[in-house]
């Protein structure tokens, strides 16, 4: 009896491992072949010249990267993407935090209000972008109708190189706001009331409570919202394409982003090597920005 039990125990361990490998067979094939291997292929392709038609993929070393460095449109795409991020992320964090703080104070209709703010986040980006294209329309759009009604001059919005990028950013903020609000509401609810009560007994005012209790304890939520938001803005594509559909990238490339640049170079100009090089640059940017943010933002305050 004892010997048999020992024997079964051993084979149980081995059997468990065998089952595990059976379970992981298809998934590992997927992750290696569809997710990891293509990343190396992108690196490889970025060192080659290939126009999609021929079979020949000549090794050209860093030529594609040099071409990128010398392309003013790529510089433009980089600069624009930076602008989107620097304007959009703080805007949605501040607005989201403000709305969450206000929502936390109300007792009636909180669920309904939260649902309304969340609605744009659920909406298909393509459909929302086309609605906004109409709202922004310079001649017949409701926004200019509104400006006219309050006695302000009409604005070109998406048709102006100076305004287009900010008009696009406003749509993205509108769309992301609900997500940020929900994250902050959850963060606020996890802060124990006792901290506030103790601080109030010590005579702390509303400002001090916010600065010394709410903000530090909300740090994990803020880090998350900043990191996720930044990654989203660095990968901006769908809104940009669909808001200026006839002039993708906006007037004078004023709304062009890195991903739209990659799409154009790869699937309109068929310079696959150069496009692959741009994806490698994007990967490097996203990786370093994310690691930097995680390090700096989460280190600052630790409790």
């Amino acid at each position, binding site marked *: 009896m004892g010997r048999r039990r020992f024997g079964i125990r051993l084979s149980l361990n081995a059997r468990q491992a065998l089952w595990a490998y059976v379970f992981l067979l298809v998934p590992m094939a997927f992750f290696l072949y569809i997710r*990891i291997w293509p990343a190396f292929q992108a690196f490889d392709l970025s060192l080659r010249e290939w126009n999609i038609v021929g079979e020949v993929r000549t090794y050209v070393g860093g030529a594609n990267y040099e071409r990128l460095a010398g392309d003013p449109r790529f510089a433009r795409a980089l600069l624009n993407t930076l602008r989107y991020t620097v304007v959009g992320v703080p805007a949605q964090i501040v607005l989201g935090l403000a709305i969450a703080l206000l929502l936390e104070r109300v007792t009636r209709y909180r669920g309904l209000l939260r649902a309304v703010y969340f609605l744009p986040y*659920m909406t298909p*980006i393509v459909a929302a972008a086309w609605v906004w294209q*109409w709202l922004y329309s310079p001649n017949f759009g409701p926004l200019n109708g509104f400006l006219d009604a309050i006695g302000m001059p009409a604005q070109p919005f998406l048709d102006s190189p100076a305004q287009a990028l900010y008009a696009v950013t406003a749509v993205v903020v509108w769309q992301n706001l609900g*997500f940020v609000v929900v994250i902050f509401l959850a963060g606020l609810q996890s802060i124990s009331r006792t901290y506030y009560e103790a601080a109030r007994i010590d005579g702390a005012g509303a400002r001090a409570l916010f600065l010394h209790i709410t903000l530090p304890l909300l740090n994990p939520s803020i880090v998350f919202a900043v990191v996720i938001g930044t990654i989203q803005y660095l990968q901006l594509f769908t809104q940009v394409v*669909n808001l200026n559909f006839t002039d993708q990238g906006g007037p004078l490339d004023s709304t062009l982003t890195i991903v739209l640049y990659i799409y154009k170079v790869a699937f309109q100009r068929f310079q696959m090597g150069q496009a692959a090089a741009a994806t490698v640059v*994007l990967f490097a940017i996203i990786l370093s920005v994310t690691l930097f943010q995680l390090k700096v933002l989460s280190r600052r305050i630790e409790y």
Partner: protein
Amino acid sequence: MSQRVRPELGMVLLYGVLVTGAMITVFPFAWMLLTSFKPFHEIFSLSFLPAEPTLENYAQVLLHTDYVRWYANSLIVASATTASVLFWDSLVGYTLAKLRFPGRNIIFVLILSTLMIPTEMLIIPWFVTSSELGWVDTYWGIAFPGIMTGFGVFLMRQFFQTLPDDLLDAGRIDGITEFGLFWRIALPLVRPALSALGIFTFLGNWNAYLWPLIVIQSKAMRTLPVGFALFSGEAGSEWNLIMAAASMAIVPVLAVFALFQRQIIEGVVLTGVKG
């Protein structure tokens, strides 16, 4: 302090700000819906309500474009992908959380590392592979990059880890197979995580744009976002038609939201806390 003196005034102000914000948020939807009922000659008048409301725009979009086909395509791709993700991500998550075997950590780190790679970097190699294997312009071609996700594996692993090992050991003694343990005992216990993952996977695929835009070539294979974008480009300034098509594109999302509001909100929180 000063707010304490006049609490009712503060409350009025609070609701005033929140309701104004909510109205601004909702305005694009209201405009879209109202324009979709206006005949063409009314759309540039800027009146909020349609003077002669009509269903003509909806009929036009449904009867004279491939809209219904695009809708069906999106449903097929999004449903199949969601089913696949739910099955595989939970199986892998369970295996990594609950089974002991050599190489477990390496495999986990490998899958986790895929989260760092932006999709854009993979798209060109995917396109090459799809062309070589004849996947371009097929449902499989649209769906294959998303049939499993590193994020889902991570999420499910977190949840399976909270299950007690004794439970599974008891099952093992009763002679249940390892797959049976996963399917009949562990899976029903993580239903909240499954519904959150399922809803977000469905919505993500329903709304996907970049990859479908690249891999789809024929009009008939377009998913809703691709079909809608290209149709709108062709429709030009017929905003009444575009708004009708947009209204219909939003319906399933609204339905999902109305039905699963709690799970969706919890899902966002879940991903926020766990991610």
